[in-house]
């Protein structure tokens, strides 16, 4: 039995593929099911699809799936636009209310939109409108705390990121929404990095000026799906891992080219060299680990950063000394070489299996 819409959709796709392949095998004379067997399979699948359609509003065929993709995009853009609309609505009419009314409106909007999200989720199986409502609820809660700060001249604090992250994660896990999971993860990255930065004495808002502040957040995010089982939430594990790798490799890429902003007190060249080596080693390690654990997301992110680190190095070495046609030829040949290596690894079964 499936727990989420994504898992139900996956099963429905597998049923459709199975039906197509079975028909092909029967046409080619490989297999011949008795009418009773065929009817039993068809009845079972019909029942499952009907149940999925009722519970999760899944796409039963390819055309429905294409339409569904359009609806997902519309839902995403609509959620962002509605959240922005709420923000500007508050800004525009804010001055017409006394302070006590402003506080009541802010708290009421956060509570009301949260309640509405749960109400919509109970009545809607597709999840599109739930996503819209959840984004608006999150935006209202962010605005709630931010405007309280403005009304009462509260000193800006990174502590606000904690309830924002908690609220985004609550909505994400309740409504199975990856967009809000990403929002929650971004709040966690900002808070952990800000806290890390303050250990050196800096004011928290400057945490982005020392890229090493992001590394603890990267480790925590990478470990999260290992320590907390996410089987029920399709796609959540990859989001944690991809954000973890981005939080690791992007600061590393900056430091590999701009060692001056590191915490380390060594010579700039030594710092940049260290992070270049670390970039290669860790991105290669990510490819290896992703292949071992069947994490396509980790393999892909690792591959992208390995190539970026490699091309950055090529640029440093050869951009000025090589004719441009030769430089780009080297880049192209390197890509071909990487393709050969990947193909060898795939042939050996290192990339086999499906992503979890």
């Amino acid at each position, binding site marked *: 039995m499936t727990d989420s819409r994504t898992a139900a959709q996956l099963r429905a796709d597998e049923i459709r593929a199975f039906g197509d392949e079975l028909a092909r095998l029967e046409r080619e004379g490989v297999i011949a099911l008795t009418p009773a067997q065929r009817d039993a399979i068809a009845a079972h699948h019909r029942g499952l699809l009907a149940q999925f359609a009722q519970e999760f509003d899944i796409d039963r065929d390819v055309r429905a799936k294409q339409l569904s993709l359009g609806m997902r995009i519309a839902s995403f853009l609509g959620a962002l636009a509605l959240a922005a609309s709420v923000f500007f609505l508050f800004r*525009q009419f804010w001055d017409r209310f*006394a*302070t006590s009314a402003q506080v009541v409106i802010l708290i009421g909007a956060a509570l009301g939109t949260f309640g509405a999200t749960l109400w919509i989720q109970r009545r809607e199986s597709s999840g599109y409108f739930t996503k819209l409502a959840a984004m608006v609820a999150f935006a209202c809660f962010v605005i*709630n705390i931010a405007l309280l700060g403005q009304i*009462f001249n509260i000193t800006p604090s990174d502590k606000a990121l904690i309830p924002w992250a908690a609220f985004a994660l609550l909505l994400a896990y309740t409504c199975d929404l990856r967009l809000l999971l990403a929002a929650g993860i971004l709040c966690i990255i900002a808070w952990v990095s800000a806290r890390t930065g303050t250990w050196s004495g*800096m004011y928290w808002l400057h945490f982005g000026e020392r890229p090493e502040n992001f590394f603890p957040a990267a480790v925590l995010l990478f470990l999260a799906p290992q320590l907390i089982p996410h089987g029920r939430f399709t796609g959540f594990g990859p989001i944690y891992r991809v954000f973890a790798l981005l939080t690791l490799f992007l600061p590393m890429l900056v430091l590999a080219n701009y060692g001056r902003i590191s915490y380390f007190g060594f010579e700039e060249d030594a710092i940049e060299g260290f992070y270049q080596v670390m970039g290669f080693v860790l991105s290669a390690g990510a490819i290896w680990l992703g292949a071992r654990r069947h994490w396509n997301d980790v393999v892909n992110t690792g591959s992208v950063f390995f190539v970026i680190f490699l091309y950055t190095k090529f640029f440093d070495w050869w951009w000025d000394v090589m004719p441009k046609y030769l430089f780009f030829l080297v880049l192209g040949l390197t890509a071909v070489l990487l393709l050969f290596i990947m193909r060898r690894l795939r042939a050996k079964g290192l990339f086999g299996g499906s992503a979890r």
Partner: protein
Amino acid sequence: MTFTWTRTHTLAAGLALIVLTNAIALGGVAWNRSGEPESVLKLSQRELARSRDYGLGREEGGLQLRMRWRALPADSNTDYYWEFQGAPEWLDKAKLASLGFDVSPLPPARRGTWREDRQLPREALIVLELDGPAYQKALERARARAAREAAKGAKTGKTGPGTSAEQAATQLRNEETASSRLFAVDAGRDAQALRAKYPDRARYAIVQGKVRVTYLSGRGKEARWTGHIDDILNDQINVPLEFRKMIESAPGTVRRFPAAGSGPAFEVTVAFGRRFEPWIVSATAQAK
């Protein structure tokens, strides 16, 4: 028995999160404003600028007043020293060290590098002085400069519009009637020590700010650490509805700053609480 997370749990958790977060924020506000205010300053339009009303700011609801604080630089020849990036003369090496900065001399090979040159800003308590000795000193400097430029102009015959003499005279007029009299005069990490040093709560407010340090090693000059006040954290003060109409209707308040010679359009009493967060206690329109 296994625990199953239900919709009721979600509802309870969400409501608790929203209510608790708001309660903590509002509780902090109540605590900040409880008891006697830490300080109370009577600020005028000279010290409080209206928020900008262009771009996205045009649609911004509410009115914000920004404290226009200044810092008196060590160099008295600096033409005119407005608010930000103030490098005050009192923010010397010893003061910077007391704020936690590493001010040990840098080896020549390391001077001017980004990392050493820019230790990141640190939080500090800043003392703001209203219409005190720092303002008087700024006024004296403006008078001396105006007199010096007028004398120069009389000698060379250049006294008309656009000349240094005319600019210095305008600057003096601004300093006397329009410029902010709110100066950052000290910084520290211990609020009690600062208050003991500046006991007048109607003239000195302690606020939270950020201090930045820079290593100056120009050619032919002695290499040294210098400090800047990077920002005052709560320099935007929200104007509640009950005061907004008065401030907006005061003659001359449509300008962000008072016009030179016209005097400020309003006076606002600002209290600073236990957490050094400000709020408006009263506001009055100034008679023209």
